């Protein structure tokens, strides 16, 4: 059991499903759907196994897998879960499975739809269980492409056209990830100087003794990158439009788990690697989070389209998560993770 | 005594003439021919450098062969393109070839 690469299998099942689907004819709709359902269900069951198999008393990273990849840069294909990632992994699979279920009756371009959806689910999952910065970033980028295609191909035009919504979403996420990339590279370079060997492993990086000024700088970059992803005020403009424009299954994933990558990243990378920076920037983040909570909450009141209501309210709720992260203490972090899990569940439920 | 510099200057002049042809001609085939001139200029340089600097290694000649190969491919594709465009536009005048605009 301990040798079984359960996380890899969980991660790769939807991708395998996607690959299988690409080999089918577009007219074999029911087979395509079944493959999608089976692969996401498999992932869901495996993530349940992970959830119950996690040794709570022991804590820490468990079920780790690590295969060296690019030795010169210290990159390895490393997965692992701990108390923060398990709920989000479970959430992703729950929502992934229900997204497949919710789009069961899709009629147009079924093949493309499910291939992209499965890729999206895998990408989100990968960000939550990667313990290597490079792998994390890789999966983060994997997420963006299918979501763009899904929005422009299957979305609906509301206040804005779906093409606009999809493009806005993509540009925001890519700009965010550009900041993130700069931060990650800075971390890598600095850590190499401090540790004497190149590494991308998060836990190894956490041992490096970064100077406070450097931490503040990198944390600011992270806050911009992840903040854009979790729709931090005032970088939230992509979220309501993207939410409203996306097809239901994507809205579920978008509001349900996609934004959680931002919160997760801020906790996992921001707080773990850069605690001093996080403390330093926390007041500013807290103010922006309040902006989220109040501002988006009030805007919700005038919305008439249910999807926009959910979109703005998810912006508002991510403000609470951000507030929890900005508070930098154990209770608030617990609350932030709980909040992410809980609010991950409800937008799918209210997706029309 | 004729040295390397003379051959290089010959190459340079050929290259310049070819470049002028590329800018100044309207006929697409003429432009293609001018490009051939430029490629030949390069070949002259390769062979001259091979002769004067490292006669035994033969690297310059090798490169010249590759240039000739690529030039042959280029001419074939280029002419096919010109003929293809000519079929649609009834012209080989480069001023009519503004498909790349905007």
């Amino acid at each position, binding site marked *: 059991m301990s040798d079984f690469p359960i996380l890899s299998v969980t991660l790769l099942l939807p991708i395998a499903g996607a690959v299988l689907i690409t080999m089918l004819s577009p007219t074999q709709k029911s087979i395509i759907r079944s493959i999608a359902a089976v692969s996401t269900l498999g992932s869901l069951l495996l993530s349940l196994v992970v959830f119950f198999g996690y040794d709570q008393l022991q804590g820490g990273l468990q079920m780790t897998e690590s295969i060296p990849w690019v030795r010169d840069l210290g990159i390895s294909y490393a997965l692992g879960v701990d108390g923060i990632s398990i709920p989000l992994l479970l959430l992703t699979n729950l929502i992934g499975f229900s997204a497949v279920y919710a789009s069961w009756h899709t009629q147009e371009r079924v093949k493309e739809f499910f291939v992209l959806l499965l890729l999206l689910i895998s990408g989100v999952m990968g960000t939550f269980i990667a313990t290597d910065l490079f792998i994390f970033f890789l999966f983060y980028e994997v997420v963006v492409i299918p979501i763009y295609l899904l929005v422009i191909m299957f979305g609906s035009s509301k206040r804005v056209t779906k093409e606009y919504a999809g493009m806005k979403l993509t540009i925001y996420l890519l700009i965010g990830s550009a900041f993130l990339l700069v931060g990650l590279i800075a971390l890598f370079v600095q850590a190499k100087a401090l540790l004497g060997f190149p590494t991308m492993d998060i836990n190894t990086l956490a041992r490096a003794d970064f100077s406070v000024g450097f931490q503040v700088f990198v944390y600011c970059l992270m806050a911009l990158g992840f903040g854009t992803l979790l729709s931090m005020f005032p970088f939230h403009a992509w979220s309501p439009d993207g939410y409203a424009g996306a097809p239901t299954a994507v809205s579920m994933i978008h509001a349900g788990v996609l934004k959680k990558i931002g919160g997760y990243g801020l906790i996992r990378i921001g707080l773990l690697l850069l605690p001093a920076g996080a403390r330093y920037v926390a007041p500013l983040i807290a103010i922006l989070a309040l902006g989220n909570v109040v501002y988006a909450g009030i805007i919700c009141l005038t919305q008439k389209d249910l999807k926009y209501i959910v979109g703005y309210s998810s912006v508002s709720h991510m403000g609470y998560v951000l507030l929890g992260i900005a508070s930098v203490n154990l209770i608030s972090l617990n609350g932030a993770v709980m909040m992410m899990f809980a609010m991950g569940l409800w937008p799918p439920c209210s997706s029309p | *005594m004729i*040295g390397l510099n003379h051959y290089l200057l010959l190459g340079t002049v050929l290259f310049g*003439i070819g470049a002028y042809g590329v800018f100044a*001609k309207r006929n697409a085939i003429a432009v293609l021919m001018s490009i051939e001139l430029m490629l*030949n200029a390069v070949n002259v340089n390769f062979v001259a450098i091979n002769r*004067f600097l490292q006669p035994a290694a033969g690297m310059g000649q090798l490169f010249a062969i590759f240039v000739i190969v690529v030039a042959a*491919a280029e001419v074939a594709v280029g002419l*096919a393109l010109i003929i293809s465009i000519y079929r649609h536009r009834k012209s080989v005048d480069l001023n009519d070839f503004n498909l790349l605009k905007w």
Partner: protein
Amino acid sequence: MIMNMDSLVFLIISAFTIASALGVVLSRNIIHSALALILTFLGVAMNFFDLGASFLGLVQILVYAGAISVLIIFAIMLVMKPDSAATNPPTPSRDTHFIGGLLAWLVMIGVGMAIGLTRWPAMASEPAEADAVGTLATLLLGNYVVAFEAAAILLLLAAVGAIILAKGDENP
């Protein structure tokens, strides 16, 4: 300046080559241009012989003066207008004409200066030994076999591509 035999040969060949090249770009008749191009190729081939690269000279004559020129003339015949006298005019725009010439001069002067300023390593006074073909073969099928194969594939692709492009639509 002492004129010896080598210099004389070089000068004659160079003059011939440059004159033909000028003919290519200055002629107003595309057929004349093409013929001048063949002469230029021959001139370059003579240069190769002069430089002791006799194999390459032969290749030059075969590929350029033979194959490519024929290809070009075929293309000209396919697209030529009835009066061939005005088939190869210069661009009407004076600016382009002028700028093109200027740039060509600038490049020539620049490269010429660069050549003049370069300090070359020791020159070999003698041409290479007779078996240049053997050396080339060893190189092509030895160290550079991958590039050789790539060139072969390139040629194949170019041939196929040219056929597809030139063939046009089946049902226009």
